[in-house]
């Protein structure tokens, strides 16, 4: 088992029962936006419907991850063809295209006409350093034998602490239920040596499931191939061990910067600052005691 993929509780607390660390590699460059992952996840995990209405934000009416959306396909329309950076090629050319669209109302999404579509299926990252798990006071959130992060629905009391703790905004409280819910990386299926529902349903293999070590290997080869083919902004997101969350169990290949897809460009697990936070709280408590003593006793007549 790879030293590098180690988390606080995995494999350490599982002794011989630890399984290889499993994860997702979501290669957004081949996502076709079919949302089969969203549907398969809902079906398998019996996730309630999440009607958001019509947003007008391209084909995205799921909006974000949450208690009732454990996979979310993002749709970004960009007026910038692959391989052509407006700053490098002529700005006049870009302006011409803009004008063409404005004059003719022509809206096509073919590559090369100045428009491109980015699609990406987002999911819980199953962080190596998972802030949600660290702050959970009940222990409902735990690290499985596969190195994934799961909420125990029979323990969670809906305190809501994990919700703002996650740097990716993954967790949310389910209305009428009170508990929080998120992707379990199909814990039940993993136990039966099955692939998670979303990965199995994905027709293009944009969502790849496997041992994290292998997935990272595959992803590196893929991003290099894409860079060679001219996708200069292609980047691996959360695929290392030394980022602000110690790397993710579910990582991504993106064609543009993370924030374009609604992902934070430099997420950090707040637990890294636990020491300075507790120190400040401790000093403040001690100062409060000293000041009260000085003021109450000092003025004694």
């Amino acid at each position: 088992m790879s030293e590098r993929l180690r988390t606080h509780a995995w494999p350490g607390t599982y002794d011989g029962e630890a399984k290889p660390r499993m994860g997702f590699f979501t290669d957004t460059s081949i996502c076709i936006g079919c949302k089969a992952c969203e549907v398969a996840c809902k079906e398998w995990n019996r996730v309630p419907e999440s009607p958001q209405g019509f947003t007008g934000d391209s084909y995205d009416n799921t909006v974000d991850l949450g208690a009732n959306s454990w996979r979310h396909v993002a749709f970004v329309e960009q007026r910038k063809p692959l391989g052509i950076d407006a700053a490098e090629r002529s700005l006049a050319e870009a302006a011409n295209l803009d004008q063409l669209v404005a004059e003719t109302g022509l809206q096509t999404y073919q590559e090369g006409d100045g428009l491109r579509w980015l699609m990406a299926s987002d999911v819980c990252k199953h962080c190596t350093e998972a802030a949600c798990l660290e702050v959970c006071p009940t222990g409902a959130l735990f690290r499985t034998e596969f190195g994934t992060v799961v909420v125990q629905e029979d323990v969670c009391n809906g305190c809501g602490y994990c919700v703002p703790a996650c740097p990716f905004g993954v967790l949310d409280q389910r209305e009428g239920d009170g508990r929080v819910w998120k992707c379990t990386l199909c814990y039940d299926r993993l136990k039966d040596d099955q692939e998670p529902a979303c990965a199995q349903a994905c027709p293009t293999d944009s969502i790849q499931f496997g041992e994290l070590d292998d997935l990272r290997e595959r992803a590196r080869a893929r991003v290099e191939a894409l860079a060679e083919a001219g996708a200069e902004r292609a980047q691996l997101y959360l695929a290392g061990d030394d980022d602000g969350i110690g790397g993710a169990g579910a990582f991504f290949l993106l064609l543009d910067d993370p924030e374009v897809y609604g992902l934070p460009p430099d997420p950090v697990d707040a637990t890294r600052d636990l020491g300075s936070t507790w120190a400040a709280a401790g000093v403040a408590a001690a100062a409060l005691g000293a000041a009260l003593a000085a003021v109450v006793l000092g003025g004694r007549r």
Partner: protein
Amino acid sequence: MSATTGATRPPQRSYHGNPVIKEPIWKPEIPWYFFTGGLGGGSAALAYLAELGGHEQLARRAWPIALGGIGVSPLLLISDLGVPHRFLNMLRMFKVTSPMSVGSWLLVAGGATTTVAATNALTGRLAGPARLAKPAAALVGLPISTYTAALIAQTAVPAWHGARRELPAIFAAGAAASAGAAATIATPVRHAAPARRVALAGAAAELLSVQAMEQWLGAVGEPYHVEQAGTYARAARALTVGGALLIGAAGARSRVAAAVGGGMVLAGAVCERWSVFKAGLQSARDPKYVVGPQRERVDGGRGHGASRRALDGRVAEGAR
């Protein structure tokens, strides 16, 4: 906030302007709890010290205030839970990485000791246990006043996490101001001198620490000045200054002035907690507060390397 230093840099981008992190789902119980925890914890310490200093009348009134503050706190917390009947799950474990877990145990200890202390102060019973319970309640009251700041700081919310060093001081000062103000209201004027001093010192410290936070946080502190958080902050300042002036000027002579001034300082402490609470929500809601500082870190070479591009055939850290 937004990163627009270079001429070629595109303006900050986001996904359809949607939030990146989730807004906390905590209800109004939580900012109120910040206040009651501070009031209760501060009052326990004040009561014990007043007893030590021979201010019997003051101590006898501060203990029940401490019990009120610490007693109502768990009720507020339980009512905020999504599954209230599972509140005992808070005590399944003790986790130092979770300020909420630490705080739950502090409230258990504070609740038990303060109950004994207040019972003794009011009825004279339980004298034996109270000898231990009183100093213990005073001691536990101090972190009860400040750990809530650590709780909100240990999140991805920019206005809270960015202020992790400053918020505990504000909460401690607010606890002193609240405890002093409440005791000033409850105690006859001639016995309340130490309470008035605590109220004034706490109010001054609260104003100063809020000021200091604004200085130190710079752009990260913007959410504290705008929208509802800004309104609460201005109300807090006005009420705290006004109340302190009234207590200082007339609190030693007039019980009415002491009560009105004390009420204003208490209201100021409540508003300050609401300002902090709202600032967090505002900063979580707006992607510019979440993405902006992170993008600046990455562009400034201070990022943690979440995104890497392929360069020269190997995957290396990407610079824009």
